[in-house]
């Protein structure tokens, strides 16, 4: 009897602990979301855990003017990054995982250091380069700079998926008379489809999130959502419109809420440059 009661007590304790953990990780997000629908007076005068007066003013603002443009820009740049990086990294990952060549591991190391390097180190040269070749404040300039981090990342994730495809499949296909392209199109890409979707999701995530290059290389036309959020918050000498910042922040979280279900299984691969653990 006593052990049974003990067991039940432990179970309840565990559920309480679980709920507490969920609370700790979700409450801040909840609080940001509700701050977005509070009125400015409410935000600036008292602490409330639910909006006493609901105002959709901030969220409506998001779909007009500069906010809307930034959101669209962020969408565009993320999709373009996928379109550029996914094919390039697929090819590169294929070479790295299937073919041995002189200096392959040094090349791979160089690739990984790019991803691990602090973005701030590249602020100065990028600013200099993109100003001089007329790509400052353009989508294309931003797209190119993002490859610095996106390509290594997507190459290593793609490689980790390609490892799951046996090399014998290559050889069998070539014996059957497939050309390299035919093999990619008819065999390898269909086999790797779930993996490639995850890679696309990762590219989306890191592009959607990026701020420091966007802040350095855009002014008006190509400004992205993170930069708009930054300039909303960092305003010296003015009152910051926290409701607006919260609403923008909430919007930027929504893709994460969707993606968490797509990439969760593969999440480690997005942070660790290795083939498998």
């Amino acid at each position, binding site marked *: 009897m006593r052990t049974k009661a003990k067991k039940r007590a432990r179970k309840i304790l565990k*559920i309480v*602990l*679980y709920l507490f*953990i*969920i609370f*700790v*990780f979700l409450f*801040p*997000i909840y*609080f*940001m979301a509700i701050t977005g629908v509070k009125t400015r007076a409410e935000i600036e005068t*008292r602490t409330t855990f639910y909006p006493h007066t609901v105002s959709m003013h901030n969220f409506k603002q998001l779909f007009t003017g500069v906010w809307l443009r930034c959101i669209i820009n962020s969408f565009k740049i993320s999709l373009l990054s996928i379109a*550029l990086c996914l094919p390039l990294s697929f*090819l590169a990952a*294929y*070479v*790295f995982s*299937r*073919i041995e060549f002189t200096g*392959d591991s040094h090349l*791979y*190391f160089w690739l*990984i*250091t*790019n991803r691990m390097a*602090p*973005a*701030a*180190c*590249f*602020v*100065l*040269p*990028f*600013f*200099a380069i993109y100003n001089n070749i007329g790509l400052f404040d353009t989508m294309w300039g931003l797209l*190119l*700079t993002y490859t*610095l981090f996106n*390509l*290594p990342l997507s190459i290593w994730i793609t490689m980790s998926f390609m490892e799951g495809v046996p090399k014998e499949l290559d050889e069998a296909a070539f014996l059957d008379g497939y050309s*390299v392209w035919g093999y990619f199109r008819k065999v390898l890409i269909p086999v790797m489809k779930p993996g490639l979707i995850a890679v696309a999701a990762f590219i989306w995530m890191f592009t*959607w*999130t990026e*701020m*420091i290059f966007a802040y350095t290389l855009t002014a008006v036309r190509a400004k992205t959502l*993170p930069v708009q*959020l*930054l300039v909303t*918050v960092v305003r010296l000498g003015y009152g910051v419109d926290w409701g607006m*910042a919260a609403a923008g922040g909430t919007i*930027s*979280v929504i893709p*994460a809420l969707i*993606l*968490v279900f797509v990439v969760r299984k593969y999440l480690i691969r997005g942070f*660790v*440059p*290795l083939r498998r*653990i």
Partner: protein
Amino acid sequence: MSDKRFLLILPALIVLFFNSFFPILIVLNYSFQNPFAAVPRVVGWDNYIRVLHDSAWWAAFRRNMYFTGATLAIQIPLGLALALIIRERGKLASMVSAAIVLPSLIPFVSIGILWRLLSMTFGPIRLALGWLGIDYSLMTPTNAFWTLVVMDVWHWTSLVFLLMSAGLMTIPDVYYTAAKVDGSRKWQTFRYITMPGLKPLLILAALLRIIDSFKIYDENVILTGGGPGRTTEFLSLFLVRKILREWAGGFGAAASLIYLLQAIVMCFLLIMVLTRGRGMLGRQS
């Protein structure tokens, strides 16, 4: 025909060459002159000497070290503990791990914003600490620093948790059964079976976190902006301020390269741990 396939790597390499190698050459070039001056001239190693004698640079470096140390000291045990607690499968457990993982997918800027909202004058943190009789405000250096640490813990414990969970799955159940049969106590099982199995992943997690927390920029600039004063200004913030606000071209270039070198050394250690001497691409070399 196998040799020709090698060419498929070229598109990616060309793009990366333009974006990584070329910029480094530019910084290298800048670092030996004063590029934004009215009359640019070559100054030799002066910029490097100035960076290495700059007390503000070392102050930022020191602050970044403290920050990294503090976050590591909390994240690693916490992530490990969470992974140990949430080992079973089931709906609730899976929901808990989804909640833990979620912050790692949120844009860094939004992480900064939501913690700023929490730590405002009329935010929940001040209210909650008020109940404990503590007067909290983001405007003191200590509070700003620890708020950043807590934010980072909230943000990145997920990574440690994920790695530890993956590591726990690689330890065969047989070991635990054997330990039970031998009458091993819980902490003994933990000490002699779980810990050795997790050790490589613990080192990996620590290195990844060190690399990342030396890069921190977005959350830092939003949550504290380096303030109050410059008491929470970490390396990236310092560097970007020097470059974009003070137009210190030569100094910025030299500092960028020193900063980059530190990252490459850390990355080298990371790879050593990852491959355990098996060669970079897992081949016998």
